[in-house]
């Protein structure tokens, strides 16, 4: 029986894990870097251990330091959260060696799923569909034509050593094949010193849809339905919902079964997520398996009625799953909005800084998971995710209307954030209609970047209010403060044309 859990993470997920532990009467140990001494997970956990300097590689990614904190604190289990060490098979191996329970899958499941080629082969063997394509490198034009004949156009030619979009060519017509092969090869040679390429089916109008899995150590595997994750910016999800407005009931059942098969194929244990890419005709292909809790797990918690962290801990304790597949149902609809400290107008550039003010939404159907507070300085070293708004409604329309209401009540000042941008997405026609793919944000940039106009006289009211506050402050200012203002003024007289880029 787990009695004390070290949470090897930070931010909202660390706080969220501590909450469920506390509800189970399990003690919690936070770890923190230099930058995180005042972070919420440190304040909220029962104990806190310093594990190194601010850069992740010296602290949250430093297995030795974390194991040391685990030993010193007497923790009998470690929860890795998501990101950081959560998908590093070395971490559970070390835990095993040191006799500490790792709240997650066995190292072999992590490493099998972590290697793209092994994972692909394992899925093919398990009968789980993968994106059609050649297994290995293309060695001749003839081979390329053969492969393309097999999988059909359009295809993507990709540099084997590739990344960052270099050495990549989309081919839609047969006449383009030769030139695309040549140019991809040559670009690959220039960029990576390796001209080998491979060919994959190009998925048009793709959806990212993932299935939540729970598997215990007694061979029980269940799936807790899907999450639609196609609203993305910079290839990162920012809004997720369940059920997917796109998926048919039949396809949902098939994909759920495929997800269970995927988990079984690697003897999975714990909570995991099988990600699929789904084309406009609802053909689905295994993309990858995330062998950990997902950021967006709360929407599944809400519609299925589970606490996934508690399930993880129960599984780690060796208990059999109490949930039975046949009893599971999706009740209503849930939407998660990820709140980032970033500037949507400036290519979503991250914006760390001091949080000076927060208003958090409450009331029926609203859950907030976060990690910031007024006066907290968001560090520049880590992910800009600062809060998640999870909203439930009896159906999609209801969840959507409630999400809009809650987003309006949500205010964060001091750091740039994407709250207004999220609201614009929820107001957009395509999202409201449930009709969107992973290209949605780039295709609707103009609408999404517009600012809401203010109704009635609200601009004037705002002007008046700010002015009255100013008058009051000026009246109250002490001579000392007035001097400060004056000095400030002097500084300014050395003003130059200062550019912000």
């Amino acid at each position: 029986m787990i009695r004390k859990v070290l949470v090897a993470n930070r931010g909202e997920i660390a706080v969220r894990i501590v909450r469920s532990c506390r509800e189970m009467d399990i003690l919690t140990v936070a770890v923190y870097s230099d930058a995180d001494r005042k972070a919420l997970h440190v304040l909220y956990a029962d104990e806190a251990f310093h594990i190194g300097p601010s850069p992740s590689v010296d602290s949250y990614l430093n297995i030795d330091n974390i194991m040391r904190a685990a030993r010193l604190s007497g923790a009998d289990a470690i929860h890795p959260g998501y990101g950081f060490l959560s998908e590093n098979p070395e971490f559970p191996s070390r835990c095993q060696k040191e006799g500490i329970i790792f709240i997650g899958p066995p190292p072999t499941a992590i490493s099998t799923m972590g290697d793209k080629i092994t994972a692909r082969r394992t899925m093919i063997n398990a009968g789980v569909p993968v994106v059609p394509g050649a297994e290995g490198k293309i060695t001749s034009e003839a081979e390329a034509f053969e492969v393309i004949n097999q999988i059909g156009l359009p295809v993507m030619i990709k540099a084997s050593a590739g990344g960052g979009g270099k050495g990549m060519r989309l081919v839609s017509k047969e006449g383009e094949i030769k030139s695309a092969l040549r140019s991809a090869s040559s670009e690959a040679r220039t960029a990576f010193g390796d001209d080998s390429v491979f060919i994959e089916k190009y998925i048009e109008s793709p959806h990212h849809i993932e299935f939540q899995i729970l598997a215990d150590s007694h061979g029980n595997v269940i799936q807790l339905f899907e999450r639609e994750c196609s609203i993305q910016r910079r290839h990162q999800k920012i809004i997720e919902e369940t059920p997917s407005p796109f998926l048919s009931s039949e396809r949902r059942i098939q994909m759920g079964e495929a997800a269970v098969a995927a988990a079984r194929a690697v003897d999975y244990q714990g909570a995991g997520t099988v990600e699929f890419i789904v084309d406009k005709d609802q053909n689905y292909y295994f993309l990858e398996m995330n062998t950990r809790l997902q950021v967006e797990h709360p929407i599944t918690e809400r519609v299925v009625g589970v606490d996934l962290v508690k399930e993880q801990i129960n599984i780690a304790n060796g208990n059999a799953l109490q949930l039975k597949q046949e009893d599971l149902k999706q009740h209503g609809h849930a939407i998660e909005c990820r709140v980032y400290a970033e500037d949507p107008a400036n290519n979503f550039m991250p914006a760390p800084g001091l949080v000076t003010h927060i208003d958090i939404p409450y009331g029926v159907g609203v859950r907030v998971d976060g990690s910031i507070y007024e006066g907290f300085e968001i560090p520049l070293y880590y992910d800009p995710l600062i809060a998640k708004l999870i909203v439930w409604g009896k159906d999609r329309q209801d969840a959507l209307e409630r999400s809009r209401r809650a987003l309006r009540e949500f205010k964060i000042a001091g750091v740039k954030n994407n709250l207004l941008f999220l609201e614009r997405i929820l107001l957009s026609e395509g999202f409201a209609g449930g009709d969107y793919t992973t290209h949605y944000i780039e295709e609707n940039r103009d609408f999404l970047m517009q600012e809401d106009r203010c109704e009635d006289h609200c601009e004037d009211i705002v002007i008046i209010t700010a002015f009255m506050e100013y008058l009051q402050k000026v009246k109250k200012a002490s001579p000392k403060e007035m001097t400060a203002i004056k000095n400030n003024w002097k500084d300014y007289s050395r003003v130059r044309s200062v550019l912000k880029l």
Partner: protein
Amino acid sequence: MSYEVKLNDRLARVEVLNQDGDKLLVSVDGIEYDLDFVKIGKGSYSVLHKNRSYNVELIPRNGVKKYQVHTLKNSFEVEIIDSEAKYLASRKKEHEADDEAIICSPIPGKVVSLLVSEGEVVEAGQSLVIISAMKMESEFKAPKKGKVISVKVTEGQTVESRQELVLLEYS
């Protein structure tokens, strides 16, 4: 006495005509507002105008003249233009044609690469500095052709928002 107040890109003229307890009469660009105006907390006001209810939150930015303002549905940047601000604005205008420019970091972060050194001539669009923050790297580029007068940071250094990175002289 009337003041100018800037809201986003709009410049408005504001004058308090009368104040009696919570009752406030103000004009904004010639429109008179008869308000029930109540402070409900630090920087937080409830304003009733013809029974329309506005909950206005002001978060000061650098002193008493700039505010980020939230209503239930909108957010704004507001600045009070007093004589000091006017002076600064005129100074700024004077210098606008300047052939010098300071490249500042719009975000706090860490300098991962310095791509130029003092005395170097740079083309418009040439990358000067790469700043990393929150797992993302951003490149900062020269807006025009010019010469690097001085480099104000070193690689590995942590910079604040608006900290000066590079001083250019345009050619």
